[in-house]
């Protein structure tokens, strides 16, 4: 009887190589994020760009149509837009720089050990926890020239004789809303920087102390470089947020008086919901996006990204 030989059958060659399968699996894992980001970020941006190329005033549907760069040309002649852009820079850099300074000081203080530190840290977060609209209403009341607490305190302290109209005077309105925003934003920087401070190894400071480094030298050569990644990320995100942040100004001054606090994001709202000019509002949004993109690239280049210094 002939013995049957067992022959090994070659395995079917897979359609994809092992490497290709691995790569594909990786991309499949990413797919939900891509879909979510595409639907919530990319599509609205593309839609806004498309809308900015149309004349789209809701109360004039008969005039709806493609106008190319017409809205962008109109923007060049719009004095209020240029004023709002200038105000936006004033608002953003005034707010973020002071928030950063205040936050840094607060973080350094909260990093020290003292009794009740946990409670103080929690309390420090309070302004950040309160919703923006509520903060705006509280400060609007504090600034109220006729019956607000601020004027009353200054008068009682003998620092003021005439009532100051903080939000109604065009020269004071922007500093006043910036001060409110600083009060609200300091905890954000304080907590971020405090987390960074806690991650710096004590050995570094001890070694520096042994080498004879003073307080300022330790701060300059250890604390600041070690915090740099956090500083870069925190300031960049805060700048972007503040540029788009309209709640405070909208509630406190509505962009007034006489456009003194009109920033580009409140002006965009005004165009969309007062004038119902969605084409022009989309144009303002696209310009704001481009400015933010350019700024972020420049900022990351100047600060050499978030990689720690070698």
């Amino acid at each position, binding site marked *: 009887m002939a013995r049957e030989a067992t022959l090994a059958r070659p395995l079917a060659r897979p359609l994809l190589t092992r490497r290709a399968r691995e790569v594909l699996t990786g991309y499949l894992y990413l797919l939900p994020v891509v879909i979510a980001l595409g639907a919530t970020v990319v599509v609205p941006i593309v839609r806004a760009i498309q809308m900015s190329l149309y004349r789209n005033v809701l109360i004039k*549907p008969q005039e709806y149509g493609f106008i190319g760069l017409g809205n962008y040309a109109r923007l060049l002649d719009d004095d209020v837009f240029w004023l709002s852009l200038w105000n936006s820079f004033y608002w953003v850099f005034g707010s973020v720089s002071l928030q950063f300074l205040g936050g840094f000081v607060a973080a350094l203080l909260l990093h020290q050990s003292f009794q009740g530190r946990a409670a103080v840290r929690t309390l420090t977060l309070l302004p950040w926890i309160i919703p923006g609209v509520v903060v705006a209403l509280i400060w609007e009341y504090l600034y109220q020239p006729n*019956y607000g607490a601020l004027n009353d305190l200054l008068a009682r302290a003998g620092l003021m004789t005439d009532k100051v109209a903080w939000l109604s005077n065009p020269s004071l309105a922007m500093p006043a809303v910036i001060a409110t925003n600083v009060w609200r934003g300091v905890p954000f920087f304080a907590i971020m920087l405090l987390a960074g401070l806690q991650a710096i190894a004590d050995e570094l400071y001890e070694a520096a102390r042994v080498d004879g480094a003073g307080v300022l030298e330790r701060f300059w050569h250890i604390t600041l470089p070690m915090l740099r990644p956090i500083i870069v990320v925190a300031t960049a995100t805060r700048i972007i947020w503040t540029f788009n942040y309209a709640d405070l100004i909208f509630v406190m001054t509505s962009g007034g008086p006489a456009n003194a606090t009109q920033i580009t994001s409140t002006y965009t709202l005004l165009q969309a919901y007062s004038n119902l000019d969605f084409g022009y509002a989309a144009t303002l949004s696209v310009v704001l996006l481009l400015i933010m993109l350019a700024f972020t690239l420049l900022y990351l280049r100047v600060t050499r990204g978030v990689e720690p210094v070698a």
Partner: protein
Amino acid sequence: MDERWRLSRRQILKGMAAAGALTTAELAWWDEPLIAPRRAWGAQPVRFQFSVPEPKRTALVESLAQRFNQSQKDFEVKVEFVPQAQARQKLITSIAAGTPPDVAQVWDNWVGEFDGMNAVEDLTPKVRDWSGYKDVLPLAWETVTVKKRILSFPWVVTNDGVYWRTDRAKEYGAKPPKDDWSFDDFLAYAKTMTKPDKNQYGFGMRGQGTWAVLYATEFMYANGAQVLGRDGKVAINSKEAAEALDWYLDLFRKHKVCPPSVPTDGWRGIVEGFGRGVTNSYIHNSGSSEEQKDFVKPENFATVPLPFGPAKKRSSFYFSETLTPFKAGKAREGGFKFMAWAMEPEPHFMYSKTLGLLPARKTVAERPEFTRDPALAGFIKSFPFSIVSPYLAHAGWGGKLDSEGVPLFQQALVGRLTAREFLDKFAEVLSKNMS
């Protein structure tokens, strides 16, 4: 707390009624429907958007909806409350998305915009067949008529008048404002009533929001100015308008009879300023009269018409809070029935009286609750010379008044523009947006 153990107001009231602890007579008008049976199943829902500035309105409108639902079985009104500041924005976005409510409470100056968006329908034939048509004041119909088509029901109406402090006028020896007072009398009153050492100012001028420009325009009309000339062109930058505006702005700039917060004082600012005793007069519609009765007390204030200007003229802008149905609404028949029902004498009276606004129906407006209330006297006396706001003439003006007119006006207030410069720029804005 476990949801199962929470009782709604309806359940509490029903329980109390069942226990005999409550009689219908003891209930507030707006609580009564809550103990009655609900509507039958299968009724078509009617979406009604209402903007809520205060809890009293919420209870009142909820009650109106319940009463309507109990009055018939085919439709069920569901109220969608939205904050007043977002009401217009919500409507615009829902219209753009093709999902507007069936009916909404809308200010008359928005109706033209919605017509421009092709979102509202011509109600003229239906309204003319409605039993109460002839009882509604013709001027009220005018506020909701665009291009000779009636687009809404004028739910309640009002006009502008001057609120003033009777008690303090006596205390400071000020000449009390009379029905036929003049610009000079107005200034004299404001000066006498300004006491900076007591943190009191004679007049609470409005500097924020559309009505800041409207109130200033009323003073311009008192000097013979017009927004539109006879040729249909913008004529607001006339000599008469500039003179009157200069005089008006000087109340704040030169005479200092207004508080320093004027450039950012919106309606809340002027109403609260008077209510807290900071200002001793302000211009507003009758809508804040009920609030002032709580703040200042009824015996301490009164209302009077706006003063005569140098041209021996005066005006008060008349406007309405409307019930407006939308073309894309799914329950148009139910929406119309609800609006017609809300205009019936009882709900119409309760709504107007509770809010301090004036009824659009003549028979209701003639009731003593309105005619004998001193807080409303200034408004009722202003009816003979009231006109529909001239800024309703073009739909494109509504938003521009807010976005461009107000910032320009504020520039004039703070001295960055003269009255003449403001009017020239403002006229340019209006001319560009005639539609």
